[in-house]
């Protein structure tokens, strides 16, 4: 497998688990279609069971496809076994060979390809330099810390200079501080090497900070494929919005529509919002991020009054529970210092108030 390719194409990739005794057939991955350009960093993001790990295992060749195909430029690769695909993979529990030293672990892929010893030693040294672990080259994995093991796993995957690097939730076993450090490491390594990477995670911060494009998945289906900024500010449907932290979800009546601008009212609110999908049935789901509310001193466009119920101090800002006149409860995140019982005026920019159809099925990608 050459490291120079221009695109990786997934076409209708499907993985179904057949029906067994007392078990229904289960579609873990449903018709994933996307194209990855050379050098891109793609994150597969979603909750457990959404199919992201299945997708990765199918790409690696560890799971066969039930339907669809995978092409590397013009070569069809989903018919090849893993040892013939030449992709590098970092496993969630690292899967370092416990009986081999760090150096031998990293050299393993090269040894399997018959790379001569001298060249192999050089490439291993370069890879270990890249992850800053050359001093531990002779140690056994059991003697390393979690973060160090993780770096060895990364070095092992990249030393073979694969066209594609696959990472399966590599940071989930690390503590919070280490996770942030390793995230920066992974970003740095990707910048230096420029290898196409597909990264599976359930952590949105990781996905947003590392990826060129994010694939948000739910129940085996890709809900949205876009750059992080769009996923963050313009989630394609209610499920993506929910997953990306739009914690305020209110069902309201549609008073009027003009293009994408809609007027919603109910439960003590009357707001202008932006419809992200075609609405129907005279009702809509309003989705607003807690951080997007502005605390204003007097009524302005798109504002409403509320009372503070609870204040949770978070250092830089506060998470404030408020109650609107009609009894509706909202969550606000603001740097304003408020006290329980205070009246407060909140405003929201219309393009930050997103409206989705109420019928979840209508909003889902089929």
């Amino acid at each position, binding site marked *: 497998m050459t490291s120079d390719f221009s695109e990786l194409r997934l076409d209708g990739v499907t993985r179904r688990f057949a029906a067994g005794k007392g078990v229904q057939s289960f579609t873990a991955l449903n018709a994933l279609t996307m194209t990855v350009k050379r050098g891109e960093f793609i994150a597969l993001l979603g909750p457990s069971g959404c199919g992201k790990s299945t997708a990765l295992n199918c790409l690696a060749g560890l799971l066969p496809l039930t339907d669809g195909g995978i092409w590397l430029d013009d070569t069809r690769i989903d018919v090849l076994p893993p040892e013939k695909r030449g992709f590098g993979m970092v496993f969630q529990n690292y899967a370092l060979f416990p009986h081999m030293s760090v150096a031998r672990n990293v050299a393993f892929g090269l040894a399997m390809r018959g790379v001569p010893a001298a060249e192999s030693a050089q490439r291993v040294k370069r890879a270990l330099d890249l992850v800053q672990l050359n001093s531990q080259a002779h140690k056994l994995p*059991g003697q390393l810390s979690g973060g160090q093991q993780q770096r060895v796993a990364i070095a092992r995957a990249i030393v073979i200079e694969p066209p594609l690097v696959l990472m399966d939730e590599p940071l989930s076993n690390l503590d919070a501080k280490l996770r942030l450090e390793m995230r920066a490491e992974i970003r740095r390594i990707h910048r230096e090497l420029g290898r196409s990477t597909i990264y599976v995670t359930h952590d949105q911060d990781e996905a947003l900070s590392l990826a060129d494009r994010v694939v948000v998945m739910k129940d085996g289906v890709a809900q949205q494929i876009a750059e992080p900024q769009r996923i963050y500010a313009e989630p394609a449907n209610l499920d993506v919005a929910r997953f990306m932290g739009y914690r305020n979800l209110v069902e309201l009546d549609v008073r009027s529509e003009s293009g994408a601008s809609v007027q919603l009212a109910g439960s003590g609110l009357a707001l202008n919002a932006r419809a992200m999908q075609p609405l129907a049935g005279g009702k809509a789901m309003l989705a607003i991020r807690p951080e997007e509310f502005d605390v204003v001193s007097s009524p302005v466009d798109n504002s409403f009054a509320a009372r503070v119920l609870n204040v949770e101090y978070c250092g830089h800002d506060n998470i404030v529970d408020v109650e609107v006149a009609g009894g509706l409860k909202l969550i606000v995140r603001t740097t304003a210092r408020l006290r329980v019982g205070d009246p407060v005026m909140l405003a929201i920019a219309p393009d930050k108030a997103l409206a989705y159809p109420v019928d979840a099925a209508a909003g889902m990608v089929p």
Partner: protein
Amino acid sequence: MSSASPSSFDRSLLLLVPATLFMVVLFVYPFLYGLQLSFHPMEGNWLANYTQFFTTGNLRDTVWTTLKLAIPATVINVGAALPIAYQMRRSSRFQKLITTLLVIPLTLGTVLIAEGMLGYFGPKGWLSQSLQWLHIYEGPIRLTHNYWGVLISLVISGFPFAFLLTLSYITGIDPNLPRAASTLGATPWNQFRHIYLPLLVPGLAMAFALSFVQAFSVFPSAVLLGSPAGATRVISIAAYEAAFERYDYSMASAVAMLMGVVQLFVVAAVLGARGMFYRGPVSGGKG
């Protein structure tokens, strides 16, 4: 491991007393008693039992006779267990079925296997008749009351044990390791050779040692299926005869000690050799 014990005497340690006492009285003491008894023969100096053993033909030869049975049996059992258990390493209905079926000869024990073999493997048994009918072999087969009968019985009773033990070691290896190897270009054979095999060596050594020890102490099969006076006069028979036919408990103890020594020697050799290989955990990082 949980609660720290207080610096003063921990009363819960008293829970250990009955079991420890039992072991000391019924296991350690008889062993020590037997050891010292072996040095107090009915006649002669303190080494008389041992010298008698090594100078008497039909006593000394039992060691070699037993080894001639135990080592091939163990090699067959462990040697066959490895590839077969490896083939069945993935949890499946087939694996569960085979495992359950193999537990049966294990549980039935050597006496029943001996009785069954006398009928089935005997000159007039079904096996003999089938071979004759298929013209593979003319005339009655001679697989009982000789070396082969005992060897076959050692395989029938020993293979399930070696298989189950090996299977438990193989399934204890993190399945992500061969997967990682395959993404790095390792063919299935290379996955076995570079990943499984080195990690299995300690377990295989243990399986070999335990299987050997079991085979070396063969007794009822050697009597019922072999020719206890001749070709399959194993060391346990010598010990039994000394104790229950000649009432020479001192000699019997000496023979039992020698049995233990040979077993210990082989086990130590096997475990010592494995110490040269890897000896750590078999998962590849934070699980």
